[in-house]
C-alpha cells in the first residue's frame, strides 16, 4: 500500500467526520435554540402545509432571490442546480452496481460541470463589477469561489482533457467505504481535485456554507402565521407567566 493512498484515505475519513459531526452539531444548536416570538415575514402561509410549500419554493426555485436580483438569481440557481447534477453524477464512484437513475444522468452531469463553472464565474464577476457587492466581499468570499471553481476546473480537466484511471478511483472510493484501502492513482490533477473537495468538506460546518442547513431553521420563512389562534411560547418565556 502506497503512502499516498494512506494519506488520502486518512484525509477523506477526517473530512467526512468533520463534515458530518460539524453539521450535525450546528443543526442541533439551531434546533435547540428556541424561537420565542412569531416572526414570519408576511404575507405568510397560515398552515403547516403552506409553510412546506413556501420552503420548497425557496429551496428549489430560490423564490426570494428571484424577487431580489435577476442576475444573482440566474448565476446562483445555475450553479446550485448544476452542482446537484454533478454530485449525483459522482454517486457512481460509491456504488456497484450503479443505480439506473444515476446512469441516466451521467450525460447531463457531464455538461452540468460546465454550467456550474459558468454560474460560479458569474457570481464571482459580481464581486468585482457591482460596487455594493465589492464592498461587502471578504477574502473568505473570494476563497470559497476560488475553491469551487478549481474543483470544477480540475474535474472538467479529467473529463475532457486528460483522463485519469477512473476504474482505480472507484476501487479506492469503494474501498474507503469498506475500510479496505485500495491504491489511488498518482495523477496530479486527480490529487488536486480530491484535496480541494476534502477542504470544502472540512470548511463546510465552520463557514458561510451553513446557509444550506440554516435556511430550514430561518424563523422568518419556516413559521406559520397563526399567532391569534395558538399561543406560541418558548420555555424561558413561559417561565415569566408564573
Amino acid at each position, binding site marked *: 500500500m502506497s503512502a499516498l493512498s494512506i494519506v488520502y484515505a486518512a484525509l477523506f475519513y477526517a473530512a467526512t467526520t468533520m463534515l458530518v459531526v460539524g453539521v450535525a452539531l450546528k443543526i442541533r444548536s439551531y434546533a435547540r435554540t428556541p424561537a420565542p416570538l412569531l416572526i414570519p415575514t408576511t404575507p405568510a402561509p397560515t398552515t403547516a402545509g403552506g409553510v412546506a410549500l413556501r420552503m420548497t419554493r425557496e429551496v428549489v426555485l430560490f423564490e426570494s432571490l428571484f424577487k431580489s436580483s435577476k442576475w444573482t438569481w440566474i448565476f446562483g440557481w445555475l450553479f446550485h442546480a448544476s452542482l446537484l447534477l454533478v454530485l449525483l453524477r459522482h454517486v457512481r464512484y460509491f456504488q456497484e452496481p450503479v443505480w439506473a437513475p444515476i446512469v441516466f444522468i451521467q450525460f447531463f452531469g457531464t455538461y452540468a460541470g460546465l454550467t456550474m463553472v459558468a454560474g460560479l464565474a458569474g457570481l464571482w464577476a459580481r464581486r468585482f463589477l457591482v460596487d455594493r457587492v465589492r464592498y461587502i466581499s471578504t477574502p473568505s468570499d473570494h476563497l470559497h469561489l476560488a475553491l469551487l471553481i478549481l474543483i470544477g476546473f480540475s474535474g472538467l480537466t479529467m473529463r475532457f482533457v486528460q483522463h485519469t484511471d477512473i476504474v482505480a478511483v472507484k476501487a479506492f472510493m469503494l474501498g474507503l467505504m469498506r475500510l479496505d484501502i485500495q491504491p489511488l492513482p498518482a495523477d496530479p490533477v486527480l490529487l488536486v481535485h480530491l484535496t480541494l473537495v476534502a477542504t470544502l468538506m472540512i470548511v463546510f460546518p465552520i463557514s458561510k456554507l451553513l446557509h444550506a442547513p440554516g435556511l430550514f431553521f430561518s424563523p422568518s420563512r419556516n413559521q406559520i402565521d397563526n399567532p*391569534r389562534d395558538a399561543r406560541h411560547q418558548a420555555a424561558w418565556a413561559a417561565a415569566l407567566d408564573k
Partner: protein
Amino acid sequence: MATAKFETPALKPYPVIPLVAEGAMAHLKPFVASAAIQQNIGFPGELTEGWEQRALARMGELLGKYRSLRVYMDACVHCGACSDKCHYFLGTGDPKNMPVARQDLMRGVYRRYFTFAGKHFPKLVGATDLTREVFDDWYRYYHQCSECRRCSVFCPYGIDTAEVTMAAREIMDAAGLGQKYSNEIIGKVHRIGNNLGIPGPALEDTLLGLEEDTKDETGVDVRFPLDVQGAEVLLVTPSADFFSEPHVESLIGHAKVFHAAGVSWTLSAKASEAGNFGMFIGNYEQLRKIALRIREAALELGVKRIVVGECGHAWRVAYSFWNTLVGIGAGGKDPFAIELQNQLDGRYKQPMHICEFTHDLIQRGALKFDKEKNDGRIVTFHDSCNVARASRMGDLPGGQFTIPRDIIRAVANNFHDMAPGTIHEATFCCGGGGGLLTDDLLELRVKGALPRMEALKNVVDEHGVNFMATICAICKAQFSKVLPAYGFDMGMVGGVHQLVSKAIRLES
C-alpha cells in the same frame, strides 16, 4: 436643538441605486440616554469598566434564546440581494446602511468570540475585536435601521436585519449605552400610561373636547368614553391620536364607527398607548411588561373585545406577540391565558385591528357613507412596514393589503396605488420607524424617506394624488415632518379612518 445642515436629495423620475459613498452617514448618531434614563428601566447607567464583558455575556445569552439571531449570524453568504433594498442606503449611499453590512457589524464580533474560524483566523473571515470604535459604529448604524424588514423579504434565507438590530440595541443597553429617545419613552409609558406622557385628567379633558368638536361638526352626540366598566370594546390606540394632527382625525373616525355600529366601547387611562417601544430596543422583558398593561386594563374593565387603532408597530406587537406575551388571543391552555380567554368573546378575533372591525361592518352593510364628501381627495395608500411584513388582517394572507384599500374604496371615489415594488410586501418604510422618530436623526429621516417620496411624486404627477392615507402613527408624524422637505404639503398625509370619518353617515 439644531442639527447640522444637510441637502435634501433630489427626486428622480425613476429609482436610481446610488454608488457606495463610504462614511456618508458616519457623523450621525442619536442622543445617548442619560444614566438616570437607563437605570430607570433597569439598564446600567453608562459604559463603565467591564462593559465589553457585559456586552459579550448578553450576546451569548441572546444567541441561546433566539434562533433567529443564531441562524442569521451563520447563514449570510454576502450575495448582495439585500444591498439595494434598504431605504436608508437608497437615500444616503452609506454602505453600512446596506442590510448585509449592517448585520456584519455584529457578525464580525460574533465570529471573533463565538466561532472556531473567527477565534483562529480572524482576518480571513472578517472577525473583529469588540472595541469602543466598533461599539460606536454599532450605536450609529443600529440606530439608522427602522426594523422595517424590507431586506428580509428579499433575502434568500429570510435573514431579518430587524432581529439583528433589536439584538444589538439590547446588547448595547445591557452594556450601558442606550438611546435617549426610545428609553425615555419607555420610562414614560410605565410612569404615566402612554408614550407622550399625557396624565389621566388631561386625557379626560381632551376627550371631552373631542366630543364637543364632533357635536359641532355633525350635530350628533358621539361619545369618547374613558375607563367605562363593562364596555364591549377596549380600544387601544397610539397616544398621538389624542391630540396630534392628523392622528386625531382618525380617532374621531373610530368613535364615529363605534357610534354608527351601536357598539359600546372605552379607552383606558392605564393602557392609553398601543405603541410598545420594548420591541424597538429588542428587550423581551420590556416588551412583555408594556403589553401587560393592556391585559390588566382589559381584565379590570371587563371588556369582551380588544381593538387596536391605527399604529404599525403596535399592530405587529398586538397581532403577532400579544398572545405569546400576555395571552391576548386564542389557543392558550395555561391558567394565565385561560383567565383572559374566559372573559373575551371567542366569536371575534382577539385582538382585532380597527380596519378589520370597520371592514366587517362594511361587508355586512352596517355602515352607510356619502362617498362624494371625499371627492376633493385623490387618494393613495402607504403600506406601513410592520403591518405589511409582520402581521395580517382578516383570514387570508395579504389581508393587510386588501382590507385598508377596500375601506378606502368604500368611502372615497378616487384611489390610485403607487408603483408595484413600492407597496404591499415591498413597501418602503416612511423613514421614521423603529425608534428613529426623533429630531436628532432628522437628516436620516429626510433622506430615508426618498424612495417613498419618489413613488408618491409619480402618482402625484400622473393622477393628481393629493392625499396619502396610512394606518400608522409614526408614518403620520414622520410624513408630516418630511413631506415639506420634498416640496409637498404636510397636510397630504392622514389616516384611513380620517377618510371614513369624513364620509360616514351618522344618525343621532
